[in-house]
């Protein structure tokens, strides 16, 4: 008898990621490529747009419960968020809020694979992220919002802040989570501060293993789509989180005010600093 092979999640594109999570036959993509709503700004800058603008949004069910799911396609423009892709995610969450308030509780799953704002659409990307964040803040008080970061792109820029607002966060060891991309930090602060070629340093500080160990995400999973599905269902069943990570203000502040910043920090230091506090782990 052969052991069934685990199906990796990371190799799936955005659309396949969503369909692998939703109950079979329940996925309904909204504003799909057939609607051909492309970025109004990319062609003017000689970038070929994509019919889905690199973001797939759908409604469907998980374990029979209504859910909306958005996935960013990391292979299009680095998973960057522009006007259309940003509006798709914000609009989807806004509809989930309405639906929930109207008596049909609808939770949300966000699959982050993004470098953040698309610089070619700068202020419309940034503005859309503020609207996505506002919608998460409303929805998470009514229904859980689960964030997933698997890589290969990871989750950076304004969308890393968005991830920090989610009710629950899942990572794999292939994912990275950080505000500023390594090259931008090196550019702004120098290679002594952050050497973007030093993979061990970067993964050690921002990779899934470290983010989980330091309590900045809830669960670390292997790259296995059925385990991913089970984990997300588990979080959806837990319901609204009592104290969100983003609201553990005094815990974080009391720790961060005591950090010795004379020496440059290592991953081990970060672990010791962040686990010294008494964070709510679930």
């Amino acid at each position: 008898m052969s052991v069934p092979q685990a199906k990796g999640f990371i190799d799936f594109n955005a659309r396949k990621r969503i369909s692998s999570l939703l109950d079979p036959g329940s996925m309904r993509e909204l504003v799909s490529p057939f609607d051909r709503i492309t970025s109004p700004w990319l062609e003017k800058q000689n970038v070929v747009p994509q019919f889905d603008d690199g973001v797939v949004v759908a409604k469907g069910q998980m374990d029979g419960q209504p859910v909306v799911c958005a996935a960013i396609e990391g292979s299009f423009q680095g998973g960057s968020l522009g006007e259309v892709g940003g509006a798709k995610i914000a609009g989807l969450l806004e509809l989930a809020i309405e639906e929930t308030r109207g008596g049909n509780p609808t939770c949300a799953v966000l699959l982050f694979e993004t470098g953040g704002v698309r610089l070619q659409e700068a202020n419309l990307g940034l503005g859309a992220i503020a609207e996505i964040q506002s919608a998460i803040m409303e929805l998470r008080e009514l229904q859980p919002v689960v964030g997933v970061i698997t890589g290969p792109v990871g989750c950076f820029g304004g969308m890393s802040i968005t991830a920090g607002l989610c009710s629950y966060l899942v990572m794999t060891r292939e994912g990275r989570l950080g505000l500023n991309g390594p090259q931008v930090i090196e550019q702004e602060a120098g290679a002594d501060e952050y050497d973007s070629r030093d993979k061990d340093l970067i993964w050690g500080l921002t990779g899934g293993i470290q983010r989980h160990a330091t309590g900045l995400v809830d669960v670390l999973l292997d790259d296995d789509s059925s385990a991913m599905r089970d984990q997300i269902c588990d979080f959806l069943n837990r319901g609204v989180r009592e104290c969100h990570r983003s609201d553990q203000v005094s815990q974080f502040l009391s720790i961060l005010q005591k950090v010795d910043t004379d020496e440059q920090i290592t991953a081990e230091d970060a672990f010791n600093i962040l686990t010294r506090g008494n964070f709510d782990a679930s």
Partner: protein
Amino acid sequence: MTTGSRGDIWFKLLATEDVVAQNKMASVRVAKGSIGDENCWFLAVRPDPDNLYPRARNGEVGLLEGWGLAEAIEDIMSVAVDSTTKEPIVAIVDVPSQAYGRREEALGIHQALAGAVSAYARARLAGHPVIALLVGKAMSGGFLAHGYQANRIVALADPGVQVHAMGKSAAARITLRTEEELDHLAKKIPPMAYDMESYESLGMLDDLIRIGSVDSPGQDDINIVKQTVGKAIADIGKGDTGIARRLNGANRKASQRVRELMRAQWRD
């Protein structure tokens, strides 16, 4: 001539009762003051050359500033929790960027900024009128954490007041363009621009305030700013806790179109 950062100048002009002594950090300022007959709170992030975190000494929003803003807003909300009046909160925005550094990434600056975003959004959703008053730079993660969750966004009309996803010099370095090339591109692509007139065309700005001097304002200038902020507060009705009004910009048609289509398909 008033000295200090733009944020500092306007904070001092608008706030009357500085409660900074109660705060644990010099980079986040909180004060009471009034607009018209109404008591309100003023919040600002300011440069602190002695900041514990070296990469956050020039007014950037870093680890302490993100969580510090969250703490300040939570304090404001806890005072108001039993009273029916939710005092307005005015974020005075002059933030060059988020902090770029190794310690920042290692210790979760994204989470610190999420703390500030969450606090501002909770204040707005709880009924506190939240106004962002842009007096200098409103850049990227710094602006997301300090100002972008406001009910209303108003700005001083001045070349030094800028909104963008990345500061101009950094954006030039990253995209391998000159700042002049970026300016040229921005003329054709409004969301790429830094100036307030372009930003206004995106629909996210509620008022652009024209005054004589932004750096050394006279009493007339101060009065105009106070009146405009007061008007913005008065415009926020009970239950007006959302930010959907930002969708009405001339250069935001696609944002509306996506939402209309999605709503139509939702029920199909």
